[in-house]
């Protein structure tokens, strides 16, 4: 840093002013940053201004009303918000333990030679286009759920309202599972990186004190990275809430209360994907933009929260080192 500053001051002394090329690169690259800032600003402005007619007409009542009716021009998002929450949270409930276990496997348990190839395969799961996963969800996963999984769940867990009802090939459960497949790789690769960041002395110290590998993981590794795991879960949640295409393909697109996972339902992002092209009134389109505003708020807030947690960890690690 000081060397750079020094050479720069030498250059300045020699030329008396910054070189043209330096100035040009600075302006050009600064311009690119401004372009990104402007794009994000424009994004917020455009989405909010298109949502404004609906926001000013329905206000907060939009969040609690269950009606979505283009004939009477009444719109409310309650079922869709509930559908988004139910599918995302249920997906998280399956994905988080699985993904953390995969992270542990890749960082602690797997034979060294297998770590890279299995890690790559988990990452490839995230690379499959969501539209392909959705197609697979409709045609392969859906029928399997309808004929085998859902009847079994109904017989054994039917006392829980979410697990009762008539089996169907498309519905909330398909959406949950497709979302699970999408979140697992994200949370898994973050948690692998987190576990790998745990200092070796700590792990070896625990093992030297006679802890088993599992006790070391539970007592040392997981507490060390718990904040990071929370951030990973938040990122997974944001991903699930924002996924439109695969969910639209499998969820059945009905504005209904998500009372049973077997039934069809709706979720905000998927609802935009299926309804946007065929809007009958301008207020309907505006209401879809309102949904986009809600999605934007959730995703920005969740991502911001996760970033702040990551930053705090970074600072803590920095001061300790």
């Amino acid at each position, binding site marked *: 840093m000081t060397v750079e500053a020094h050479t720069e001051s030498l250059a300045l002394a020699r030329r008396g002013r910054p070189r043209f090329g330096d100035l040009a690169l600075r302006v050009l*690259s600064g311009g*690119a940053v401004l372009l990104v800032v402007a794009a994000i600003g424009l*994004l917020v402005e455009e989405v909010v201004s298109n949502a404004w007619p609906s926001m000013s007409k329905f206000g907060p009542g939009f969040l609690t009303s269950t009606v979505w009716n283009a004939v009477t021009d009444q719109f409310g998002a309650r079922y869709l918000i509930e559908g988004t929450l139910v599918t995302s949270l249920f997906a998280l409930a399956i994905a988080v333990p699985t993904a953390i276990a995969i992270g542990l496997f890749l960082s602690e348990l797997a034979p060294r030679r297998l770590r890279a190839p299995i890690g790559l395969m988990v990452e490839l799961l995230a690379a499959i286009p*969501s539209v392909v996963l959705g197609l697979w969800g409709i045609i392969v996963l859906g029928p399997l759920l309808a004929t085998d999984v859902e009847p079994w769940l109904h017989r054994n867990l039917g006392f829980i309202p979410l697990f009762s009802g008539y089996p169907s090939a498309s519905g909330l459960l398909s959406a949950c599972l497709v979302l699970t497949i999408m979140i697992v790789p994200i949370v898994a690769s973050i948690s692998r990186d987190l576990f790998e960041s745990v200092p070796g002395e700590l792990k070896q110290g625990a093992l030297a004190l006679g802890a088993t590998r*599992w006790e070391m993981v539970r007592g040392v590794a997981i507490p060390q990275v718990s904040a990071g795991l929370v951030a990973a879960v938040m990122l997974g949640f944001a991903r699930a809430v924002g996924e439109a295409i695969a969910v639209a393909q499998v969820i059945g697109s009905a504005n209904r209360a998500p009372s049973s996972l077997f039934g069809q339902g709706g979720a905000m992002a998927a609802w935009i994907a299926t309804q946007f092209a065929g809007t009958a009134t301008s207020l309907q389109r505006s209401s879809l933009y309102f949904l986009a505003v809600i999605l934007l708020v959730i995703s920005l807030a969740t991502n911001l929260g996760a970033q702040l947690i990551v930053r705090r960890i970074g600072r803590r690690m920095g001061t300790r080192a």
Partner: protein
Amino acid sequence: MESLATLAALAAVAVLGMVIYSVARRGAPALSLDLFTKLPGVDPFGRPTGGIENSIVGTVVITGVATAIAVPVGVLVAIYNAEFASPRVADAVRLLLNLLAGVPTIVLGVFMFGLLVIGRGQNAFAGSCGLAMVIVPVIARSTEEVLALVPSSLREGSMALGASRSRTMLTVVLPTAVGGIVTGTIIAVARAAGETAPLLFTTALFASAVSFDPRQALGSLPLVIFFDSEQPSQFAQQQAWAAALVLMVVVLVGAIAGRLLSLRTRRQIEKAR
């Protein structure tokens, strides 16, 4: 507990295998020369026939334009962060890029619809801009990482020889880092090629003709899959699987190649230290 962790990893690999297998098994029979060289049409009985040439060309054009927009922006943002920004500003820029990467792609879709489609009609350029917003944060992040790997001795050597910052950047730092930038781009573009949501309202009403003009709405593989999978016709379903197979192969090959190459270039740069 340890066996459960192993089981979880096996399950993830098994799901990957299952998806790839079912797409390959259903898509492969529908692969034919016609798929790549014929346009979609209807036969005299009103049944869909033909191929998806227009959508394959469209996907190439749309992602090509998106890449052409996103690569310079992403690389320049990384250069700004590496060369000119104070630590605090660089931190803020990184935060912003992460937020952009977290914006749901369907929101990018309705944004581009409002910005570039209302009043103009659908056009592939609007879809490309949406995809560019997906690509920029990925490229900016990976480029910044690679720039940080370039040994400072190289930089200092160049500057000690009297080269300006910009000359050092263009003739020493970027050429050293170019492998990493290319692999980051491959990964980002492979991901963008499979995105559906930014195209759904911007370039979905496309004609059954091959066109390279981004001012028109162009077809794309993701939309073929999305729309054909909802068609009752068996032919359309087969075509959806074939399109899914083509798209998946492109995306996975890109993802694998990008990751393997990136390991190699990183090792090379580190060797230069």
